[in-house]
């Protein structure tokens, strides 16, 4: 375990959306603050800062993670994925993103990147989930705009097209 000094800024490096990045963080700096204000990405949204809303969800080595409950220094050397990695290099949306667009699965878009990452990790492990299973995974996210209807339709449509 690395020895960290509480007042020092420590170098933190990670693979973020496929690219090597590095920055500095005090031991108490949250991963959400590190990604937004030290690295400068725009896809880790801070909602509640107590782990309930899910807006800050990113993948750490493929695992669904609340960036607001993680210290930046914990992810040194890890692979971090956010919704910025889902579209292809030309900016064409992924099939899941397209389904969200088609079914109006988002309004203000603040909760959306976190939801997409939870679904991305989940659907990797579960190719053919039931609606109930999808609702379970989505229940880890709060959305105040949509009433969740569009996102359920989107992910069901996505799964249906995936399997046919």
């Amino acid at each position: 375990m690395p020895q960290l000094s509480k007042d020092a800024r420590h170098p933190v490096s990670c693979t973020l959306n496929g690219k090597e990045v590095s920055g500095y963080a005090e031991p108490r700096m949250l991963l959400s603050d590190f990604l937004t204000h030290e690295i400068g990405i725009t896809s880790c949204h801070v909602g509640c800062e107590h782990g309930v809303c899910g807006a800050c969800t990113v993948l750490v080595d493929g695992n669904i993670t609340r960036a607001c409950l993680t210290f930046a220094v914990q992810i040194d050397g890890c692979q971090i994925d956010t919704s910025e990695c889902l579209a292809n290099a030309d900016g064409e949306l992924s099939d899941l993103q397209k389904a969200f667009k088609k079914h109006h699965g988002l309004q203000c878009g603040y909760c959306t990147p976190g939801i997409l990452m939870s679904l991305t990790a989940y659907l990797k492990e579960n190719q053919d989930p039931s609606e109930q299973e999808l609702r379970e995974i989505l229940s880890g996210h709060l959305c105040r705009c949509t009433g969740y209807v569009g996102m359920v339709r989107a992910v069901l449509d996505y799964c249906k097209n995936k399997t046919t």
Partner: protein
Amino acid sequence: MATAKEKIKYVGSPLERVEDNILLQGKAQYSDHLPTRAGTAHAAILRSPHAHAKINSISINKAKSHPGVLDVLTGDDVKEMSEAFLIVLRAPINQWALAVERVRYVGEPVAIVIARDRYIAEDAVGLIEADYSPLPPAIDQEEATKDDAPVVHEAAGSNVVSTREFSYGEPEKAFAEADKIVNVKIRYPRNSQTPLEGFVVNAEYIAGEDLYDVASNYQGPFTSHPVMSMALRVKNSQLRMRTPQWSGGGFGIKVQIFPYVVLMCLASKRVGRPVKWVEDKLEHLAAAAAAPNRVIELEAACKSDGTVTAFKFDQLDDYGAFLRAPMPGPLYRMHGILTGAYDIKNLTVRNRVVLTNKCPSAMVRGFGGPQMYYGIERVMHKVAVELGLDPLEVLKKNLVPAGVFPYRAAAGALLDSGDYPKAVELGVEKGHLADLKKRRDQARAEGKLYGIGYAAIVEPAQSNMGYLSNILPHEERQRNPKGGAAANATITVDPLGTVSVTADSIPQGQGHQTILSQIVADELGLTPENIKVNLDFDTAKDAWSIATGNYSSRFSSATTVACYKAAQKIKDKLARIASQTLNVPPKQIGFANGMVFDTANSENSIKFYRAAGAAHWTPGALPEGMEPCVRETGSWSPPELESPNEQDQINTSLTYGFVFDYCGVEIDRDTGAVKIDKYVTTHDSGTILNPLIADGQVFGAFAWGVGCALYEEFVYGEDGSFKTGTFADYLVPTIHEVPEPKIIHMESPSMVTPLGAKGIAEGNCMSTPVCIANAVADATGEQDLTLPLIASKVARIVHGEEPPPPSGDKVEESHATDGRLRGDGETAVPAPSDLVWETLLNPEALAAVIPGCHKLDEVEKNSYQAEVSLGVGPVRGKFRAKVALSDIIEGKSTTLSGGLEGPLGTSSGVGHVVLSEEDGKTIVTYDYAIKLSGTVASVGGRMLEGAAKALVKQFFNRLTAQITGQKDSGSSSGVTTNGLWAFIKRILGFKS
């Protein structure tokens, strides 16, 4: 290829949103992502732990000298640098951006630290020492109206700061002639739709220009722009307000960012660099804004056939500790349609505004509608029950009939279009009400608690800016009559013919870019992809007015019209240009498929970009008198929005949609949980501009309606402590709690807007809570229903009050019931009682025993002061403790009283300790009762008792170790307790 004549129409089609590509990729820049220049400082705010207290002193020296801190401001600084905020009423209710002399609600800003980064700023907030003398608070809104209630603003003389009475038609006659009078008394709770993104302010004072430049996620209405500029003592043009294109939800609440805009402006002026502040969720829940809780006593005069002939409203709206502009809007925004969807000609109203020691109320989606319709639709349900009629039949019997539009409602609303009976029939038929009734019969036959509820409401959109002037008597209004609501949009066609649009709608995710692109594409004969809509906003550059912003369903009947008008101007200009080339009169020119053409001969055409380009490339060849370039602003204020008339009638909004809902609910007999089995919502919102987006607005409003009906409430203790400071306490519906409603549309185009569109985003906020409540009433037979209908509340209805426990069982009072943490117990310490006594009274020994104690001084005999670190759940911090011992019986017993104070909260309490000896051990018997307020009470509520027990155990372990000289093992066998620390803690006043 389509010919020029085959025009595609985008308005009305379910176009996918142009906003979504950037949002789905997470590339959108919300306010927290906006660039800040080097040297930008960050702010954190110290907030009041008391509901009501006098500020004795605020010591900022330690905070100010903390490394990285630039400055600290308190209310005295702010009072010197700024004016109190203007309010709607002429009453001495002064509010500055920080509390001055008194704090009046838990969470009120008391001081601001400006530092190099936010982490340091928060550290320094913990170093500010604020000393308060608590005052009795006014919490319950009805109690607060009484003569002996504590007064929130002494200068105002009373908590009831406005009373207005209105009468329309012949209500006395209607009541005198009624066959029956039915009444309800409802208490609508405090709640808020709580956007996931909180407030963000970036403010910079630019000294050379004496200008404040602010980027924030403010949402308007810009009636509060002069409130801010006057507070800052500058002209409007010296306060530049910018909002980014992207905002993480608003729902009305982001209007209330304005005190923080002023605060950050002052902070920036003080430190000479930009200051950024990002609100956290506790700050948001405790102190951003809430919809006003309202008590309505509503009487309906009825005929025995169910016809309602008059309403008598008595409304008491609770605005919390301050009236902030545009309050008391929720009480007056719905005024013109106080008769709802019903043809009721006679009406009396008494409106009272009361202040209490709670967070100030403000705009929240629905804006007065949820409260009002909860009264109206509950009384209509009860009319049916008391007359032995079917609720749906009573509803139908009283609807404004078909064929009477435009219809002037009793209090002045001009209902613009619709066919309410037809919409109800449509909903009944397409939603299969008959099947739902069978389902209810079957469920009841199986012994289930199942009910069906109905609600019919009129949904207003685009507020008349004059609605609040009805709070003044007619003579006073006459001096400065107000009415109307201006909207602005600008379209630019550049030299290459590409089109861009700006507008004053300031959206938070509603899809305004998409809809404006649809409108402009239709008008100019282009495709939406070719219209770039940019809705970031800048008061220094964009056209705006006081009505600018996103609130009260303003977009679809206001900004869209301004945009449509701007497009007409562009068309007029380009038609004149093209008429020169095409040799036909301008009236004969059409626009389609990227072409400008002769409508009599579509082959005679030029490309759109060439027609527009002429105004840039060859301005000299333009028709005589025509100005160069192509940029037009459409401005609009509908003539129907007049000032209130002599009879106090006012057309409070421009358009009025209609919503008819019904639902079936099943109540779990064991738990009381309400499950929505089926929900049908029928909307007539005029012309639908984009069905995909329209349904999205309905789904979102419905979800919040479900939250209001079943889960959401800001809870305060009797002492004013705030209990719902996290999303684990303020319960927001997850995907499991929100079923998909069936939506049915009907379209009766508005006659007062060129596009025929009305609002659609607030209807279900108003209809759904009461529709669900009516279904619960149908299921249980209980008519006295107060939202939210949480399971425990419904269980009490189903089962009655919980019976007392079998005799002999002890009832533990919970902190949740009276706001006090109570406990008692006894423990054995393996030492003689005189030794225990000595330890407890010895400052040095006690300091070593109290968990988290840094130092403990005896300030005078039997009076101690200590510094301790404590934490509950996510909250951890330093507190100053004061404890005094009294009623001392040497070696035997004492009473302890005192409290804790710190940036995370305060507590005060009393406890008793009695020592006795038994078999060489000391038996310590104790009890305590502690009052808690501030952050710990707000976020740690569920953990308090557990934390108290842990602390008590830790205290006795350490006491034993201290006395016996053993090392605290953490589970010393000599101590079997769950109480003493609680006593200290209660003495010290704290949990955690």
